[in-house]
């Protein structure tokens, strides 16, 4: 039976999870002044996008809201909030941590998913440089530089394997 109460059950562990990831440490300094949201160009044009609310959700432990909300994919990474925050809360980095955590749970905006996958596969945002090189040749530019995309896959794989080995050893 669906809950009739609309209250949010808080998960106090969530904030520690976020702060333990690189980039998430500063979340605890927030003292709710609202400057980040007041600065945010996205919040200005999109009512649902609320940086101050996201930080609050992390600190109080509203896990589902923080990771499941589609609006976390609207951040433009312009860094205005981190720049203006009087307490040094690095919101843009925290947003990246939240996004990574959402991806780990299978919740990711399709555009971001597609783009990241392509980059990891091709080593850059485009696959074959032929069409690009044609354009460049017309302009008198040299072709784009070479790239062994296997190398990229290899080093990413290495890093991840070593990481998981380490966490098993702990």
């Amino acid at each position, binding site marked *: 039976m669906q809950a009739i109460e609309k209250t949010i059950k808080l998960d106090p562990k969530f904030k520690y999870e976020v702060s333990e990831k690189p980039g998430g440490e500063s979340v605890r300094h927030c003292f709710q002044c609202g400057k980040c949201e007041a600065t945010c160009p996205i919040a200005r044009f999109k009512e649902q996008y609320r940086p101050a609310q996201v930080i609050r959700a992390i600190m109080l432990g509203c896990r589902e809201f923080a990771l499941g909300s589609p609006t976390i994919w609207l951040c433009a990474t312009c860094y205005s909030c981190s720049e203006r925050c009087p307490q040094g809360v690095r919101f843009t980095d925290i947003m990246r941590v939240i996004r990574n955590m959402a991806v780990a749970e299978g919740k990711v905006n399709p555009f*971001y998913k597609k783009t990241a996958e392509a980059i990891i596969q091709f080593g850059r*945002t485009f696959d074959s440089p032929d069409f690009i090189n044609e354009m460049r040749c017309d302009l008198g530019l040299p072709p784009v530089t070479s790239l062994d995309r296997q190398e990229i896959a290899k080093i990413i794989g290495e890093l991840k394997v070593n990481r998981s080995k380490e966490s098993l050893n702990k």
Partner: protein
Amino acid sequence: MKYVFFQGCTTPQKENAYELSMRKVAAKLGIELVTLEEQNCCGFFVEPVDHLSATIMAARDLALFDASGLNAVTPCPACYGQLTRVRNELLADKKLFDEVNSALKTVDRKFVGTSEIKHFMTVLIDEVGMEKIKASVVKPLSNLKVAPFYGCHILKPSYEVNTDNPEDPQLLDSLIALTGAKLVDYGEKKLCCGQSVGGVDEELSLNLSKTKLKSIKKAGADVMVTVCPACHMQFDLVAGAKLRDLAIPVLHYTQLLGLAQGLSPSELGLGENRVSTDAILEMIGMV
């Protein structure tokens, strides 16, 4: 002044005129750009999905710079910010440094941290200097009213990329003034272009650009000048197509400087600009 040239992805894919004009201006000012083979994406658009993958991608590029023995220069502020940030992080965190290097070792690469990454604008200001740039100007563009647009990543976060004061940036303004053009201040100077949300919410991204363009129009500028290929793309390609009645010509700074240095519009790739630059070329007598 010799640098390895880090292309990034946006410039070769969509903004080749930026690279073209940058190479021409560099040649005029005695900056040598060395080709860097094997460069990969800096990882900026991988960060939102997986920070670790993005970090090692950036680290690989940094290792390439180190191996070349030179500092690197890039036209893209997002790459500049990403690579600077990763470099700082690796140099500060010994554990991460070792982890990353042990993965890089498997492909015979090594990150040391000796090479720095610079944006072309910072090279102009710090290495070339205002005097030399001014001296290279042969055709002052005094008829042009220019609205400068810095974009976000060249200025922020100031604790990583300490180029200028994000609340009151002046460096691009000074660089534009050197060309003889008139600077136009507009209310929404610091507003983000919205390019990076375009893939997620097109209307939102256009609303940001629209607001900016309205403000520039109100201030009476003839042309906009950018230092970021993504910002240029947003106002030239995207706005050019979807906000036709508001779009105005957008030049890369290197195109503006090139024109002032006496280079021809075709040499600077002005033909690639989607919003026609004919009107402003007429204003400066270069049709």
